[in-house]
């Protein structure tokens, strides 16, 4: 049974529309529990990075709520916000651009310690310990970013994120820029750290196989909306949403039934009415044009935003007027 205190991050109904009319997040809700990895997959423009930025308070949502460890993240200011940020860290996609090229690695990591008022006398030992923990040596701390490989730099970025003993680390395409042979090392490191430190990850990636590997639960986003949420195993073996199914079948090497998505992704500034996926969906119905499908329970711990999932439709095969009775919820039990 999941209790309230197990939920570390709780974001509800996040909305964000940019000035150019692009609705990057349209009612996104998600929860991350302590010690788990929530994966977020989706193609470019689906709003996954926007969601991450809102959670990191780098971008203000138009509406919605975010609580972290029971505290309201959106209204926190000053020292409260600083205290929350200490517990909430980021591993960005590209370590080449996230480290100051003119500072040695040690200084970059110390910046994070300074920002959170760690006593200066302990910095050196702490940085050495962090570097060792992520598989580097203390000497790497005295290197400049350009002297290190992509994999080493990403390890250093993880060390920097861990410097403040965070409870949640947001990994935004954290292994996407790495060569496959190095990517496996970093994925193993992230898994080890989680086991050892009990940290939670919000793991954002476009790479389906990586997300499947690292995640407990997975959220699938399309055009600013969450279209499916399920355990990694369920999602990859029995996907519920047509988009998830086309996405999985598009992966090279997929051996099951091939379901090519129709046509092109729509213009995000002018999304289709009703279901945003309807223009590319092989199972589109009249109802999809007029009525937005809400995220509802498909099976135990699997939530799908699709009219095909409507229990009335499944049972009686008719009824265009029936409405999903499930509220818009993220999973709250499993």
């Amino acid at each position, binding site marked *: 049974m999941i209790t309230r205190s197990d939920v570390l991050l709780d974001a509800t109904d996040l909305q964000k529309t940019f000035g150019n009319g692009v609705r990057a997040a349209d009612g996104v809700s998600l929860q991350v529990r302590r010690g788990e990895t929530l994966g977020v997959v989706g*193609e*470019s423009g689906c709003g996954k990075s926007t969601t991450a930025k809102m959670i990191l308070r780098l971008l203000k949502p138009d509406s919605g709520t975010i609580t972290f460890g029971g505290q309201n993240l959106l209204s926190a200011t000053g020292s409260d916000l600083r205290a929350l940020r200490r517990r909430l860290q980021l591993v960005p996609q590209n370590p080449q651009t996230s480290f100051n090229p003119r500072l040695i690695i040690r200084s970059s990591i110390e910046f994070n310690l300074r920002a959170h008022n760690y006593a200066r006398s302990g910095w050196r030992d702490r940085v050495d310990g962090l570097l060792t923990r992520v598989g580097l040596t203390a000497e790497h701390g005295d290197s400049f970013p350009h002297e290190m*490989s*992509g*994999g*080493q730099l990403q390890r250093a970025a993880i060390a920097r994120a861990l410097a403040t003993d965070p409870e949640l680390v947001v990994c935004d395409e954290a292994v996407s820029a790495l*060569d*496959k*042979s*190095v*990517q*496996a*090392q970093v*994925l*193993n490191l992230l*898994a*080890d750290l989680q*086991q050892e430190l009990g940290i939670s990850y919000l793991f954002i990636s*476009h790479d*389906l*196989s*990586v997300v*499947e*590997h*690292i995640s407990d639960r997975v959220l699938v986003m399309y055009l600013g909306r969450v279209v499916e949420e399920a355990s990694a195993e369920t999602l*990859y073996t029995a996907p519920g949403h047509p988009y998830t199914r*086309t*996405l999985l*079948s*598009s*992966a*090279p*090497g997929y051996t099951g039934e091939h379901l*090519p*998505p129709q*046509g*092109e*992704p729509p213009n995000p500034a002018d999304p289709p009415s009703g279901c945003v996926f309807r223009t590319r969906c092989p199972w589109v119905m009249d109802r999809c044009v007029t009525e937005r499908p809400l995220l509802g329970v498909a099976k135990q711990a699997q939530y799908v935003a699709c009219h095909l999932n409507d229990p009335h439709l499944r049972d009686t095969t008719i009824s265009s007027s029936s409405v999903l009775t499930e509220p818009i919820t993220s999973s709250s039990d499993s």
Partner: protein
Amino acid sequence: MSVSAAPTATVPATSAESPVLRVESLSTSFIRRGKPLQAVRDVSFELRAGETLVLLGESGSGKSVTARSILRLHGKQATVTGSVMLGDVDLLTLGDAPMRNLRGSRMALVPQDPNASLDPLRRVGHQIAEVLQLHGISSSRSVARARALELLSLVGIPDPPRVFASYPHELSGGMRQRVAIAIAISCEPTVLIADEPTTALDVTVQAQILRLFQDLQHRLSTALLLVTHDVTVAAEIADRVGVMYAGQIVEYGPATEVLQRPRHPYTQALLGALPLPGMARGSLRAISGAPPVAGTAFSGCSFADRCGAAVESCHQQAPVLITVQRDHRAACPVLNSPSNPADSSKEGSR
């Protein structure tokens, strides 16, 4: 479609035997900070009509430099040796003018990033028509326009007149890549070279573009040399695979052989490092260390430092490609030594 009524359309069984492109002992080096930097070392392969060869490798492996050297797009500072035979013409000794003529007509490149290769200030249709007129395929503007529209529909663009009149920024990434492919096939090249053509694309679009390549090859009998870092792309599209590491081809053969029964430790490790369904978290078989920076010189085998099977001699003597089966070669004497013929370490069940 009239596109297939081309010189290359007649592909009798004999041409399957003789390669359309033969690369022999290709080496490319640059001068970096006064020192020579060898990016490609002694690369040889053949490409037959209608066939897809994938050069698979990680960053710095020399795969893109190989592709660019073949097209002679390697820049003035580079020294290229060996031979690149397109039919019976050696491209490396060809003059600049005939080479320019040949580039885009008999050989064409599909670049990784269509944002960078298309002119942002000119309408897409004109960029296609320009190539046709430049190579004398279509003499008048109206003929070139008609042909450009035809090419756009051939690459699966739904509304060719609209796209013809669009600027690149008005199109999605997948559409732009289709336009780049339309330009590349406009003169019905014998050899199409694609450098990471789907890396910048979303997975659903990538699937469409890979299918488009297969479809076009089928129709036009174009030989495709595709460069990628993505093993799954190679598995999807390749007839044959050349695995590159540190500037060399370390394993080469039919895709099914190389990817299912790899005989080089690097290929084995690369395949083993991929996350597969059902693998426990944290249990990926990672390769220690990192791929060497392009141009690193080695006295022995370039993979020896990261290799689990390495023996002492690996660090001293550079391995050569050993034939392990008819068409399957691997540069590892340890796994493929005559004294160890039926290597069992990775032999899959047939």
